[in-house]
């Protein structure tokens, strides 16, 4: 008999929360106090501007308390994470996709995958209701809903060897829920691509500077691709830094191009841009990945993290004051020009990413679970990653709430009401009856001239507004007033870059999903290297989002106004799928007493989404209800009218009739999907509670043979165990070589 050598512990024995020493009590009391003061200032401030610092304090102290107490409760009591259990990364380690990865690296990787343009755009649009509704939803929403969803899905997927959300829905809810989930994923993908592309189109239309610098990203990406493939394979960091340098050069030279005789060549209208984007999305989906997709992804990751960091520093240093009040009248009368509808339910629809984003469930059940080294690390990666994204949303909200209110509304009201001219916009905005807002056409022209744009009127979509906010903040530290144009275009570039990265990756993902689905009928489609199949599937996906995009830019009522709510609804629909999976799993594994943890956000999400859908489908108010608007325009055409509201001629009126039909039909589809998934999940839960049976689809317990700390910083106890491991295996063969001595 061989005597096993004594192995150091693989988990912290007796993992109780640290003892409450007086210092610790003082620190947490201090955090709570600071948060309380910050929230009071935000909530009670009326009629005077508030410093951005209070937003930062309110957010960070709330996050700290939630992470320390609520997330810990979920991980230990609800999920019962167990560090003696080997994770898929340990059991299935293959040196390729299953890899035990340092927890901080997994966190960075996960954050880079979930953060995109969503948390930057939604809060900017929601700012029309004042700063408070958005702030409360972003912070409270992430704590009880968004981060909970990300954390639980990540954990459940990890316990199931990294299964995808769709597979979990099929296995744990059933075939009906599974199919509904599959349709929901495809639908949301197409809505996201269309709406994000619309944001880019609105930001780049008639802007030679923006178009030139974005166009330059294609040759830059191609250069990076060649470098990585032929010159220095795998040297991602150096080529990305090189690419970022070239990107800055492209932004600077965009200014020269805009001032030169080449400008007309890069001045494109919206419809032309739509066709460019459609061609681009198609090409990216069928071309080899190394040429365009992979290098762009690296570039946008670097830009994203760099700019977010820069913005955080900017907000702390400049500490701008808000110009937006806590609430505007639009929160209650629903007549806002940016999007129609009242605070409830539309704030919770418009701000999806940053508070609760169903899309994250796709990432939390994709690559990330295959990287987790120890189970308890899900708190840092899943919950912590989402808190970070929420903070990005708070920064976007601050940037939007600190620019001039008149300018904000002039930029975000559709061309149908402003007439697209500075004079028209000034008249419209002054007529909105907002306290303390008066703006002149000269002010608007001056604001455009500062950032060297032709006009800022009706630049809807949120990206240009955010770019103005960012340029105000960053020029306060770097470069002064003269650098505003640079920072504006830097911000536009930064948003457009990763929106386009989402567009090309999304088109490709959609293509594979479609090929897989069609492959069930025509097997040859499953072969992803088959040219005809890939071209056909790519064309279908591009046509789907492209047509919605085209509909959006030609909509006389303004595309963002009508499409953004649909985008939000589809994202919250996917969140409902994810949360329903979580509730079902808890019910099936005998943990029904904790079902409220995902259950409360699920109920809230369902109420919000269904109310919004109900209003979009049944409202009599043509500004809100798609069908009311549809009938209104149809009747007007039948009555021989040739203009109505923002639609100036018969063609435009017919466009409204057509668009509202498609939008109304999509609303119905989304609402039906939510109801089907909820009903199916409830059926499964009730059946399990009645029978009292426990069925578990997770991988059985296999003992772990490694140790790693759980949180961002190793505790004293964890350091002690790490030391034991280092002595036990001095050459540390079980830890990746690069990690040795890095703790």
């Amino acid at each position, binding site marked *: 008999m061989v005597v096993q050598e004594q192995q150091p512990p693989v988990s912290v024995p007796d993992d109780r929360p640290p003892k409450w020493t007086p210092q610790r009590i003082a620190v947490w009391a201090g955090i709570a106090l600071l948060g309380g003061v910050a929230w009071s200032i935000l909530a009670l401030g009326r009629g005077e501007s508030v410093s951005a610092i209070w937003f930062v304090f309110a957010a960070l102290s709330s996050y700290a308390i939630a992470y320390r107490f609520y997330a810990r409760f979920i991980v230990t009591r609800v999920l019962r994470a167990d560090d003696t259990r080997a994770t898929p990364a340990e059991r299935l*380690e*293959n*040196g*390729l*996709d299953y*890899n035990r*990865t*340092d927890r*901080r*690296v997994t966190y*960075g*990787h996960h954050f*880079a*995958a*979930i*953060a*995109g*343009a*969503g948390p930057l755009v939604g809060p900017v649009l929601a700012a029309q209701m004042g700063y408070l509704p958005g702030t409360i939803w972003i912070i409270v929403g992430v704590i009880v809903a968004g981060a909970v969803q990300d954390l639980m899905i990540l954990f459940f997927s990890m316990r199931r060897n990294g299964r995808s959300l769709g597979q979990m829905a099929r296995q744990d809810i059933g075939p009906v829920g599974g199919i509904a989930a599959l349709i929901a994923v495809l639908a949301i993908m197409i809505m*996201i691509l269309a709406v*994000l592309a619309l944001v880019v189109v609105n930001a780049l239309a008639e802007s030679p500077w923006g178009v030139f610098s974005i166009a330059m990203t294609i040759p830059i990406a191609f250069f990076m691709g060649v470098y*990585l*493939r032929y010159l220095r*394979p*795998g*040297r*991602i*960091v150096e080529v*990305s830094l090189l690419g970022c340098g070239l990107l800055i050069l492209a932004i600077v030279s965009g200014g020269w191009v805009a001032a030169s005789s080449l400008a007309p060549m890069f001045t494109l209208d919206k419809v032309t841009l739509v066709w460019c984007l459609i061609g681009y999305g198609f090409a990216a989906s069928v071309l*080899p*990945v*190394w040429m365009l*997709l*992979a290098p762009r*992804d*690296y570039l946008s*990751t670097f830009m994203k993290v760099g700019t977010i960091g820069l913005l955080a520093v900017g907000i702390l240093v400049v500490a701008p004051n808000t110009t937006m009040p806590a609430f505007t009248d639009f929160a209650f009368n629903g007549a806002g020009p940016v999007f129609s509808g009242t605070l409830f339910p539309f704030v919770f629809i418009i701000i*999806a*990413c940053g508070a609760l*984003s169903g*899309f*994250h469930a*796709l*990432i939390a059940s*994709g690559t990330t679970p295959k990287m987790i080294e120890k189970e308890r690390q899900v708190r840092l990666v899943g919950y912590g990653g989402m808190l970070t994204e929420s903070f990005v949303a708070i920064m976007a909200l601050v940037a939007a709430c600190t620019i001039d209110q008149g300018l904000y509304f002039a930029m975000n009201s559709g061309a149908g009401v402003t007439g697209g001219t500075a004079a028209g916009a000034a008249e419209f905005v002054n007529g909105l009856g907002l306290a303390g807002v008066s703006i002149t056409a000269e002010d608007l022209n001056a604001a455009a001239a500062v950032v060297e744009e032709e006009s800022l009127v009706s630049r809807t979509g949120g990206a240009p507004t955010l770019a103005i906010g960012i340029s105000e903040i960053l020029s306060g530290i770097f470069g002064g007033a003269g650098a505003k144009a640079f920072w504006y275009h830097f911000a536009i570039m930064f948003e457009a870059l*990763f929106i386009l*990265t*989402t567009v090309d*990756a*999304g088109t*490709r*993902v959609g293509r*594979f999903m479609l090929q897989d689905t069609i492959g069930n009928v025509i097997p040859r489609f499953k072969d*992803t290297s088959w040219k005809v199949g890939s071209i056909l599937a790519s064309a279908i996906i591009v046509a789907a989002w492209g047509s919605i995009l085209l509909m959006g830019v030609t909509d006389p009522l303004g595309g963002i106004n009508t499409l953004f709510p649909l985008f939000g609804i589809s*994202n919250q629909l996917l969140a409902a799928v994810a949360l329903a999976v979580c509730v079902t799993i808890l019910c099936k594994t005998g943990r029904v007493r904790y079902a409220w943890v995902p259950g409360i956000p699920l109920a809230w999400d369902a109420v919000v989404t269904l109310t919004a859908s109900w209003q979009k489908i049944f409202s009599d108010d043509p500004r809100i209800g798609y069908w009311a608007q549809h009938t209104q325009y149809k009747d007007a055409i039948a009555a021989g009218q040739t203009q109505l509201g923002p639609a100036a001629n018969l063609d435009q009126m017919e466009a409204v009739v057509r668009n509202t039909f498609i939008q109304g039909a999509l609303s119905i589809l989304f609402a039906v999907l939510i109801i089907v998934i909820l009903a199916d999940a409830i059926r499964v839960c009730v059946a399990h509670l009645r029978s009292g049976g426990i069925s578990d689809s997770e991988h059985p317990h296999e003992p772990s043979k490694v140790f790693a700390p759980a949180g961002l910083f190793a505790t004293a106890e964890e350091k002690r165990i790490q030391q034991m491991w280092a002595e036990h295996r001095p050459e540390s*063969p079980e830890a*990746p*070589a*690069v990690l040795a001595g*890095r703790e």
Partner: protein
Amino acid sequence: MTGSLDRRELRARGYARSVWSALGRVIWYVKEVVGENDYERYVNHLRRHHPQTRPVSRKVFERDKIQRLGTGPNTRCC
């Protein structure tokens, strides 16, 4: 006099060293996140678990990695 100079110099060297090691950590972290160390990790994995298998060259490895990205691309969030 010289003693205090030496101490100052030593302290400066200490600072320089900690700046360097901090920078080293940042570079290590960035490389890990973007996956630049994947090849090294793969070679180590083979050496540990399949010592008889010869690892492919870095060029081939990176090519295959990007290829895998192409057939199962990472979704990027909104």
